[in-house]
């Protein structure tokens, strides 16, 4: 192994790399709202007036405001990402790019990078703990963030790979997440960001009575479907209701004396507690949602960081979620065909994106949407969602505070539940219930200037984004 050249400041980047020539640049979002690498790198692109950039950040958070400056300077041609929220998303909802927005999934992004459909020129990878040979891990260092899952494909395929770190060690790292053989440069900086910024507001268990009720019904549904048995696998994400379901399942598991085989996806304190209590054998972690998850990754050998490809790439032979029994997911909107929107709000503004939503819904044996029927007077259920994030054929159950709807395509589930006491309703009946409280909303005008694509993990374009 050879030692990698070290760059000592962001300003030195253009001396080493022809940033004007390589237009497709990628970032990962593991530091979430605490990341400072993306803004600092893009500051150099602003200073150097680089034009026609194509950005490939795995997600865009509110703090990533340097993108906004580059947009206003007309330096960006296209943006490909899996999720975006905040000022950049607001701006892009109103201002078309010269190219377009492409929304991908976590698995779909890795798939396209690894099979060369996406060409990455430079990957800028924030890395908390790096050795002189370019090996890196995310769960040690000054600015830890845990799993480096979303950056692995970028490291393997980008023409130039730059690790940005605030902790360069002298000795060789064993068993790294990023393999140094892919790495070209190490950029040493004072700080890559603030670990506290990875904790998002949503990773709190709900105590809202509506959320508590939905979680309780979901737990009953899982039991009645016969899914709660020894060796089952489960993914919950970090939504407040989903975490409540996780807590409820924990009690049930202790009561029944069963254990789970694995939990996957984004990992929180709640999942770690169950690992340490011996209730689940393995955690497959593509992203740490809190500090407890990072600490666990460091000390628990059965808590493993995995790449986005191993997590959710349908072409990866080791794909974890193909063995997933149950996934709990959220929805901003759901429609008569069970299509789910978590990408835009009902007014067409971009507020999120799939992340792993459609990956896990596609692969899991049973996918369950948990959501209140009404949020700030907006009914959850629409005749047609504003934007399709996940196709209805992958969505099996909807649990709300006023009943459960099963996708008619899953007659097997409906049969299983027919003799239970669960409040089963059709999705249209649930919509009627909501309208009793909200009244029928007036249909909003349709927008027709296309500004982007929603790309499924299968590579199909399943919907478009429109300028507001």
């Amino acid at each position, binding site marked *: 192994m050879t030692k990698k050249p070290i760059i000592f400041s962001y300003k030195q980047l253009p001396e080493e790399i022809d940033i004007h020539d390589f237009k497709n640049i990628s970032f990962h979002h593991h530091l979430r709202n605490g990341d400072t690498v993306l803004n600092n790198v893009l500051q150099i692109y602003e200073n150097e007036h680089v034009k026609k950039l194509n950005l490939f950040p795995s997600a865009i958070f509110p703090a990533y405001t340097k993108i906004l400056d580059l947009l206003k300077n007309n330096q960006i041609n296209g943006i490909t990402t899996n999720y975006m929220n905040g000022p950049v998303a607001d701006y892009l909802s109103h201002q078309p790019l010269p190219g377009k927005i492409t929304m991908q999934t976590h698995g779909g992004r890795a798939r396209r990078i690894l099979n060369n459909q996406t060409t990455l020129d430079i990957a800028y990878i924030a890395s908390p703990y790096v050795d002189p040979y370019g090996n890196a891990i995310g769960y040690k260092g000054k600015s830890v963030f845990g799993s480096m899952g979303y950056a692995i494909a970028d490291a393997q395929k980008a023409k130039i790979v730059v690790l940005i770190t605030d902790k360069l060690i002298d000795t060789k790292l064993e068993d790294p997440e990023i393999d140094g053989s892919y790495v070209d440069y190490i950029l040493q900086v004072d700080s890559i960001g603030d670990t506290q910024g990875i904790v998002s507001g949503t990773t709190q268990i709900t105590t809202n009575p509506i959320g508590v009720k939905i979680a309780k019904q979901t737990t009953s549904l899982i039991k009645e479907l016969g899914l709660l048995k020894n060796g089952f696998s489960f993914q919950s994400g970090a939504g407040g209701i989903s975490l409540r379901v996780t807590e409820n399942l924990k009690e049930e598991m202790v009561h029944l004396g069963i254990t789970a085989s694995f939990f996957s996806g984004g990992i929180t304190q709640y999942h770690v507690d169950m690992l340490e209590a011996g209730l689940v054998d393995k955690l497959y972690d593509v992203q740490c949602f809190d500090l407890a998850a990072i600490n666990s990754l460091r000390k628990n050998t059965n808590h493993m960081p995995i790449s986005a490809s191993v997590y959710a790439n349908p072409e990866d032979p080791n794909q974890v979620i193909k063995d997933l029994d149950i996934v709990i997911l959220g929805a901003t909107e759901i429609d008569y065909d069970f299509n789910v929107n978590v990408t835009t709000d*009902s007014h067409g503004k971009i507020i999120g994106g799939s992340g792993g939503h459609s990956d896990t819904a596609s692969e899991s044996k049973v996918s369950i949407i948990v959501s209140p029927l009404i*949020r*700030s*007077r*907006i009914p959850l259920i629409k005749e047609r969602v504003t934007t399709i994030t996940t196709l209805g054929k992958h969505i099996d159950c909807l649990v709300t505070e006023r009943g459960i709807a099963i996708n008619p395509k899953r007659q097997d589930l409906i049969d299983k539940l027919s003799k239970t006491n669960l409040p089963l309703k059709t999705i249209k009946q649930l919509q009627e219930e909501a309208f009793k*409280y*909200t009244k029928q*909303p*007036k249909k*909003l005008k349709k927008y027709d200037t296309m500004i982007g694509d929603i790309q499924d993990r299968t590579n199909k374009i399943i919907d478009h984004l429109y300028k507001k």
Partner: protein
Amino acid sequence: MNVSAGSYESNDCLITLEPAAELECIIHSVVKEQFGEQIELVLKQTLAGHNITHVKLVINDKGALDYTIKARLETAIRRMRDLDE
């Protein structure tokens, strides 16, 4: 003197009333596109039910349901009448 009731929080609304030469309703709502007409209807019906015709009403709504809007307005009306006494 104006009076108000409610809060500018999700699923609630803040309603302010002040005496005026005629009836005026100013509606700010996150769901105005979908429910603006319905909100106006509830406000006007509630005011009419209390025989109020000379008032300027401002509502800042964050998705309150009809019965919340009505309750907030009735409280504001009572506060206005308490002030008059």
